[in-house]
């Protein structure tokens, strides 16, 4: 049997339940005797809590319990931990102020949790929450990271003087200075990478319960990594025995990073479920999601690229201020450092790079990883700089990229990473062809004839995925390993259940992982079930983020499958009375090499559970194996995106006329799913470039983009259809040769679009999001300048 599944666009098995309303998301669950929670949140960006009066709320109908920061403190519950310790360039650990699960005496962002009201019905909980009287002394707030670091800014935490979390750097500063001294050309730009609000369409949701029968807890939660959630909550916050806590992440309606983290609500409700001895359900309403989900991006960056007279890159110098929000979220400290500055080489052999990052606390929602996490910010810097340098020097933007591409692998970058393989020229060539760059000049003059402005922009991105080799991550400050676990349980009938520590919240693992398993074992996909998202079933897991599921989680499964096959060979050798070394396994058959004597996989499975004549000193019954896989390196997906836009100068409206994405994801298991991931990523990236921006009012600290009416989510009619293609170089260090595809679209598309837009407008730079109103204003003032 040839490999019948890998590389084939197999339709998704999860679709049937989602299409018929049979999905099982956290809010769909109703537990017997369940209560409902509503959080009382701070209306102020920064305030001291003078007093909280609960009498009226307690007397309200249906109230089961009300808890505040004082109750939490009395119960000796710790604050939320941060998983990544960044050591500053002064050699000191980052400032890590407490992240209380309910505010004790100070609130630090609009939406900060102050109390939780638990009642029989949601309506009663809402009514009672309105009766909670909190007396606030409003304090001055600061929402911008640069402003927060300025002398005299309002201070958020005693433990973080100057609102500084850390100043950290990477690379060779002296080398960069020396290279700049001999540069023929220097390109300088300053950017804001706009704050984004993830907005998975399923809001965060929790259903927490406690069982007196066995003193155990069960937490259903919309989450991307249930084991990590449990570990952090048990070991660092609540001090609960891990084996008495079950965390289930059932169907999850999108995550994009925002559902990685251990959130205060998850912890408060788990603890409170024991206090009230009833299950407690909470689902964020969208306004709450806007205020309390971890946001993404929000960088302010100054960058300089030094080039020789031929456009060869000599050095890159980057200085970034990152906004971490009011508290350190789970991965927050790593995003603007390890996941950002290490990607600044891009696809280019820039010999020296230096990047310094200062991270600041502000009176805003915590900022953490959001689709791409650090890598979009890095790619934006690199690709906007490269395109701008090309224009300034009068070099074709594709040519300047080719001149600087890394061409021999493995390649050690000056910023810590070792790229194993890639073929940047090939993806660029293919993209140029698919985008018909040759015809652009004609299309541009046609647009011009119609009074429209047309522009074309490239982005050649690279990302580090398959997070992460634990040794590397540990050396860079990770407080956890970043391996993955898998278990293959072969049933006596030859059916297989696979348990994975990865989590699927739209990625289709139940299908693509089953394709891999079925191919490896030479059995039908119908005989393979993939189980994920439940700590009581899956042995362990680090979860899904950083495009790691297949490269790391898939490899753990492969390792477990290898063990199954090895054991199967032993059983086959016994049955066929042959030497174990003579047994070959292919196409679902264990065969004595060079003979026609064989046993099918299902026969071996049955024998494993009916071991009547096993030599017990050599062979154990059963066929069930697990494996942990820690990658030896990151994977490096890369590609070229080309965007062509047309701007209507009368209205400032941007139309994306063409968008081509050519990606190198290594080997591909299910091209249909991969394309879907690219499409979704592209729209999130293009949404950042054109539509989305999380805005806090600088005076009041209020989130002014707090609903879908103010925060411009990309809709179908804002976006084009895409031309996507792949050109794969197999990853060299995992057995599937896969790299990961979840984030690429969101990484490569913002600079491609902004390069096209600046080309159309004939301006050096333009800030995201490029809204029609701002484009129109720019064109107007340009015209006025011309006229003057």
């Amino acid at each position: 049997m040839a490999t019948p599944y890998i590389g084939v666009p197999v339709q998704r098995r999860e679709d049937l339940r989602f299409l018929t309303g049979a999905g099982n998301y956290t809010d769909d669950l109703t537990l017997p005797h369940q209560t409902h929670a509503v959080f009382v949140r701070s209306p102020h960006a920064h305030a001291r809590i003078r007093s909280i009066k609960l009498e009226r709320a307690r007397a309200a109908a249906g109230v089961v319990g009300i808890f505040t920061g004082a109750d939490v403190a009395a119960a000796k519950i710790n604050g939320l931990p941060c998983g990544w310790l960044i050591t500053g360039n002064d050699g000191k650990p980052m400032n890590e102020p407490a992240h209380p699960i309910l505010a004790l005496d100070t609130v630090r962002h609009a939406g900060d949790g102050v109390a939780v009201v638990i009642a029989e019905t949601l309506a009663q909980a809402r009514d009672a929450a309105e009766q909670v009287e909190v007396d606030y002394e409003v304090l001055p707030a600061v929402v911008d990271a640069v402003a927060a670091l300025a002398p005299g800014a309002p201070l958020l935490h005693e433990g973080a003087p100057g609102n500084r979390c850390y100043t950290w750097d990477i690379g060779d500063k002296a080398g960069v200075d020396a290279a700049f001294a001999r540069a023929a050309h220097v390109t300088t730009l300053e950017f804001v990478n706009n704050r984004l609000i993830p907005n998975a369409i399923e809001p965060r949701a929790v259903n927490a319960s406690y069982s007196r029968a066995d003193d155990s807890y069960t937490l259903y939660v919309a989450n991307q990594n249930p084991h990590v959630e449990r570990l952090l909550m048990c070991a660092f916050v609540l001090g609960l025995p891990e084996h008495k806590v079950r965390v289930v992440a059932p169907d999850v309606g999108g995550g994009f990073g925002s559902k990685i983290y251990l959130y205060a609500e998850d912890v408060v409700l788990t603890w409170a479920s024991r206090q009230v001895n009833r299950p407690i359900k909470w689902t964020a309403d969208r306004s709450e999601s806007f205020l309390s989900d971890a946001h993404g991006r929000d960088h302010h960056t100054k960058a300089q690229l030094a080039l020789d007279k031929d456009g060869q890159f000599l050095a890159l110098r980057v200085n970034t201020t990152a906004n971490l929000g009011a508290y350190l979220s789970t991965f927050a400290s790593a995003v603007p450092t390890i996941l950002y500055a290490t990607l600044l080489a891009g696809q280019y052999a820039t010999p020296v790079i230096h990047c310094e990052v200062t991270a600041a606390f502000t009176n805003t929602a915590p900022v953490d990883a959001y689709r791409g996490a650090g890598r979009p910010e890095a790619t934006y810097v690199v690709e906007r700089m490269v395109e701008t340098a090309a224009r300034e020097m009068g070099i074709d933007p594709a040519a300047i990229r080719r001149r600087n591409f890394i061409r021999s692998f493995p390649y050690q970058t000056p910023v810590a990473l070792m790229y194993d393989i890639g073929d940047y020229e090939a993806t660029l060539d293919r993209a140029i062809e698919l985008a018909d760059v040759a015809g652009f000049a004609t299309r541009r003059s046609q647009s011009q004839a119609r009074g429209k402005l047309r522009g074309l922009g490239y982005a050649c991105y690279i990302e580090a995925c398959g997070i992460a080799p634990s040794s590397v991550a540990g050396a860079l400050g990770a407080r956890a390993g970043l391996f993955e676990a898998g278990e293959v349980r072969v049933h006596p009938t030859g059916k297989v259940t696979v348990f994975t520590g990865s989590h699927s919240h739209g990625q289709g693992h139940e299908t693509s992982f089953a394709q891999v398993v079925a191919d490896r074992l030479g059995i039908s996909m119908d005989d393979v079930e993939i189980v994920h998202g439940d700590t009581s079933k899956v042995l362990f897991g680090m979860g899904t983020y950083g495009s790691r599921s297949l490269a790391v989680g898939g490899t753990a499964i492969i390792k477990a499958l290898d063990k199954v096959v090895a054991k199967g060979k032993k059983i086959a050798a016994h049955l066929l009375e042959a030497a174990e070394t003579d047994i070959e396994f292919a196409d679902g058959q264990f065969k004595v090499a060079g003979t026609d004597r064989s046993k099918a996989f299902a026969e071996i499975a049955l024998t494993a559970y009916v071991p009547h004549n096993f030599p017990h000193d050599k062979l154990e019954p059963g066929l069930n194996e697990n494996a942990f896989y820690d990658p030896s390196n990151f994977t490096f997906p890369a590609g070229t995106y080309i965007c062509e836009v047309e701007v209507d100068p009368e209205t400032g409206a941007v139309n994306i006329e063409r968008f081509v994405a050519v990606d190198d994801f290594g080997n591909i298991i299910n091209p249909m799913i991969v394309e879907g991931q690219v499409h979704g990523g592209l729209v999130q990236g293009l949404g950042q470039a054109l539509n989305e921006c999380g805005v806090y009012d600088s005076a009041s600290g209020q989130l002014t983009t707090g609903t879908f009416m103010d925060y411009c989510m990309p809709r179908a009619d804002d976006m084009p259809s895409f031309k996507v293609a792949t050109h794969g170089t197999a990853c060299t260090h995992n057995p599937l040769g896969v790299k990961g595809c979840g984030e690429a679209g969101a990484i490569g598309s913002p600079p491609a679009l902004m390069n096209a837009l600046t080309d159309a407008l004939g301006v050096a730079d333009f800030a995201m999001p490029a809204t029609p109103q701002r484009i129109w204003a720019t064109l107007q003032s340009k015209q006025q300048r011309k006229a003057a």
Partner: protein
Amino acid sequence: MTVKVSLTVNGKPAAAEVEERTLLVSFIRETLRLTGTHVGCDTAQCGACTIHMDGQAVKSCNILAMQAEGKSITTIEGIASADGTLHPMQEAFRQNHGLQCGFCTPGMVMSAIDMLRHYPHPDEATIRAELDGNLCRCTGYHNIVKAIQAASQASA
């Protein structure tokens, strides 16, 4: 204050005593336990709650249960045939990978069915414009548009 609401849901009569302020979507999800209809926002912007009421697509988060008194409602659970054969729109979404996490999907499918009633053979621009009331964060819309196009051709 409670009020009795009686209506037809997926072809069957349904009645319950609910608080006056109960939204139709809560009635569907919590009272009737039909959890395929989802809630994605609180400002009637996302369309995850879209159902059919007397044959028209409506956002069930934006009306009260009592406003549906006497009406006939169809939810995502009610559009496949009794023998389990998917509605052509459901099938088109599946064939074209028009869904990822599945959360927006019921609303998308219900809107799309309604769209084809108004525009039996829409072009891409029409589909995109008509999808204005439905947000999807996963698919980038590309395959949803393809799915609706395919469904419109299938019914040609």
